[in-house]
């Protein structure tokens, strides 16, 4: 069908363009939604009493042009290079990014000010830059990555790099809001735990796919549950210890919850054994109980969650303001820009850290329940596409890698959304693709890029299965 397409000149020489009509149509729908949102925000900004009346207009036309330009650019690049990757993922993520852009345009711009070559950039401008970089990164990975060997073969190297990142953060990280999460190198700073989650998935995919047969077939019985042979419990215990370590050292409950949740779901995906999940949850509950008893900030978080109205002016303030915002939104919301004028920032009545921790509450106020449901629905689409890619991947490694990447997005979105909605204690992780933040956006861009690459039907088939690894042989001796 593409045989007749003429070869392209220049850098695209050697590629056979393939149209991606489905992606184009979905992108067009997403673009229309973003345009309508921008108009809505533009209308809400008019204040006749103050003489601000510019009629029918977009909120920030330049932002729109840049964002949609990059979006269709990524699309066009995949068309020109003839990539046969998933066509739903990019539009879904683009819609979330567009919602993020509109929200950042709506919030007070001085929440974030970055000085950049002499000019000061506000919240929306910085977020726009990160969004565009993330989309570009995703598109680049989708096109360039044609082999998974670099991930598959070096899983222990990746694991070591992850642990090194963690240790670096511990010793060199700067403390922000009582959490030691940020690592700075000169002008560049980032949150390594964002990258760590991808590294974790790569390692787990490699480890689990290699040792899957053993994990499924050989087990020790403990009461009604089959638990894995003892040597294979080691990584589980190690993960558990790392998660607890993150809680204690980094004070990052959200990342710990995310890592452990993804780990358990991946183990289940690899083995299909519910007993492992039960065991893992039991370990989690035990750890959570001990943490609650011993670590003060964990206890504070849980107590605030149980009864925020006990401390309405201090520790409960943030979540109470968020609940008020959800309540004000009601079914239909106030419309973008129509919410409480003081939403955000340190202003009275605003939700502290709304742009990173509580975007869902702000969106709940302005887009209403239907908006929140739509956003949750888009996340489900992203998850479903990721898991679909996983289910139809060439071998176990690719399956588990794709599943893990999809779970990283899905579980993270769940944890912070549930925290916003007071279903679980609040944790300070980001809402993927929506929260403000460079590290988060770039890493999620990598995730989308890898998922797209894994979905490509044109890449080389996976290498033949290797004989069981050294650990398996060792374990075999132990068991016998």
């Amino acid at each position, binding site marked *: 069908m593409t045989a007749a397409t003429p070869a392209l000149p220049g850098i695209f020489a050697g590629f056979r363009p393939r149209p991606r009509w489905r992606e184009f149509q979905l992108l067009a729908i997403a673009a229309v939604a973003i345009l309508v949102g921008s108009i809505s925000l533009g209308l809400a900004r008019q204040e006749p009493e103050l003489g601000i009346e510019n009629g029918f207009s977009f909120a920030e036309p330049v932002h729109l042009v840049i964002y949609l330009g990059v979006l269709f650019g990524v699309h066009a690049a995949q068309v020109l290079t003839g990539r046969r990757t998933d066509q739903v993922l990019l539009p879904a993520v683009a819609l979330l990014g567009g919602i993020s852009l509109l929200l950042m345009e709506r919030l007070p711009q001085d929440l974030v000010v970055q000085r950049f070559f002499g000019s000061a950039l506000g919240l929306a401008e910085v977020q726009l830059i990160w969004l565009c970089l993330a989309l570009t990164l995703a598109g680049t990975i989708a096109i360039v990555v044609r082999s998974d060997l670099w991930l598959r073969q070096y899983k222990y190297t990746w694991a070591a790099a992850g642990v090194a990142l963690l240790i670096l953060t511990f010793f060199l990280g700067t403390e922000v809001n009582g959490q030691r999460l940020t690592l700075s190198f000169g002008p560049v700073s980032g949150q390594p735990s964002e990258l760590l989650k991808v590294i974790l998935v790569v390692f787990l995919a490699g480890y689990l796919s290699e040792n899957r047969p053993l994990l499924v077939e050989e087990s020790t019985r403990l009461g009604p549950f089959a638990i894995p042979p003892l040597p294979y419990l080691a990584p589980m215990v190690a993960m558990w210890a790392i998660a607890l370590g993150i809680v204690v050292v980094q004070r990052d409950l959200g990342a710990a919850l995310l890592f452990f949740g993804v780990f358990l779901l991946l183990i*289940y995906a690899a083995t299909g054994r519910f007993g492992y999940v039960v065991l893992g949850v039991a370990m989690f509950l035990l750890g959570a109980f001990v943490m609650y008893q011993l670590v003060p900030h964990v206890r504070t978080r849980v107590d605030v969650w149980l009864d925020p109205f006990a401390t309405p002016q201090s520790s409960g303030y943030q979540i109470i303001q968020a609940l*008020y915002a959800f*309540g004000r*939104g009601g079914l239909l919301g106030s419309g973008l820009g129509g919410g*409480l004028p003081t939403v955000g920032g340190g202003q009275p009545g605003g939700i502290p850290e709304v742009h990173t921790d509580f975007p869902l509450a702000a969106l709940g106020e302005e887009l209403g*329940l239907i908006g929140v449901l739509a956003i949750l629905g888009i996340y489900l689409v992203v998850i479903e596409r990721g898991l679909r890619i996983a289910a139809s991947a060439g071998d176990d490694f690719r399956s588990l890698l794709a599943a893990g990447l999809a779970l990283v997005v899905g579980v993270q979105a*769940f944890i912070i959304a549930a925290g916003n909605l007071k*279903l679980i204690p609040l944790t300070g992780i980001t809402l993927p693709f929506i929260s403000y933040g460079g590290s988060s956006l770039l890493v999620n861009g990598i995730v989308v890029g890898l998922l797209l690459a894994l979905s490509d039907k044109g890449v080389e088939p996976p290498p033949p299965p290797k004989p069981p690894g050294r650990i398996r042989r060792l374990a075999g001796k132990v*068991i016998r």
Partner: protein
Amino acid sequence: MTGPAAVRPAPPAARRPEPLKPVSRSISQVGIALTVAFAILAGGAGFWQVFQSEELSTAPDNPAVIAAARNVIRGEIVDRDGTVLAMNKTDSNGDPYRLYADRVVAPVVGYASRRYGTAGLERSYGAALTGLNDPDPIRNLLRKFQADPYDPQTLTLSLSLPLQRAAVRGLGADKGAVVMLDPRTGEVLALASTPIYDASAIANPDTQEAGFAAVRDNRDEPLLTRATQGQYVPGSVFKIVTAIAGVGSGSIDANTTFEEQPQAERDGLVVNGFRIREHAGVPARTLDLAAATEVSSNIWFALAGLRTGGDNLSEYAGRMGFGEPLPFDLPTKRSQVTKGDGSAPGGFVDDTELANASYGQARTLVTPLQMALVAATVANDGQLMTPHLVTAMTGKQGTRTIDPRRLERVISPDQAAQIKAAMVRAVEGDLGRQFTSGAKVRGVTTAGKSGTAELGGEGAPHSWFIGFAPAENPTIAIAVLVERGGRGGERAAPLAGSLMSTYFEMFGR
């Protein structure tokens, strides 16, 4: 888990494992799990944004409410005749503040101050008065699409300012409460609570500090609305509750007599070793319901309560609102038959407590509003209407009236008639008049019951009266409480009689 899971690993010769289940199956199960998790999120969002939405967005601490209250001109509050009770003035900066027509409405209307927040209807209807919340749910949903989303509502009350004035004047320098309501609709016509306070002084930015300090530092607690939030020992007015429970449950009727009662009037009634004594003035003869109510026999009602049983007493009291804060336009405290921590039926400790509670002593506590509802239940043939003050809300979009709602069918009309007859005897009978002197409205058949709540120790008892008139077709029910006012017949009964007379002069019969 049996079978394949327990199979030993294959011997080394056949090292290649058996074909495993494809991961795709467990991956799709993971997908289902995440879908369920997101459905829970959707449920959580629905809970806050639909079920809790109104409560959250009208919470007095919600910044939207505070912001709206600062700038928006609140709706007015008017009484049943259209007299403005709460109006708006503008200070030197052009900011609005509240002015109240009369101090006597302070317990009902409360105040709205920029500095000290809100109280009374100004608080409980704050969202409607500032227009933050439209009473019509559909319009409230669409409100956000309008250019000016705020539609301050004018509240029309069932309150009658002249009657309210008469009630406050009647209480005079005493601390106490009067509740007058229409038993047919539940509309409250007067809700007095003394001492009153100057709400305008708190609302006016020029006098707010002094005005609020005067209220805050007053040992008589004027901010405590005694009619709805004062919890008092009821004394003999509670006998009507016992009668309702006894007749309602079929344990007693109008002709019930107790063999041991005449003797016990002289010697006391021994219950569980505790001797209940009669007050002076009760003849030692056999009494039925009407006669016992007329002379207010403690012994007869103790016996009636014991026969009715603690569970029935609690059950029927609960039907009239005991045990929970009453559904009302103002915050209310709960009334209790007993503290409820006992192991005997109905939460009583033992029969002694039940017997004492049956004539309104023991650990029984009531609010004046609750006792007005007891009178209204009998007056309205056993059917209790939900009490309310706000009868209409008017905004730019028109008027929404609040129609009478039934709260509970407590007893049947026949049963109510038996109690009504007893309450008529208590006011109109030859002996009854001695206990309820002055409650009788001239030319109108009046029903009622006085109460003298002994508090132990020194000092005068609380003076109570509940009643209604005209007995044939009641249009007004009343509860009067005067703290330390003496015997019921001395203070509360004459006040109730005169207030009901005033009512009939104003509204006809």
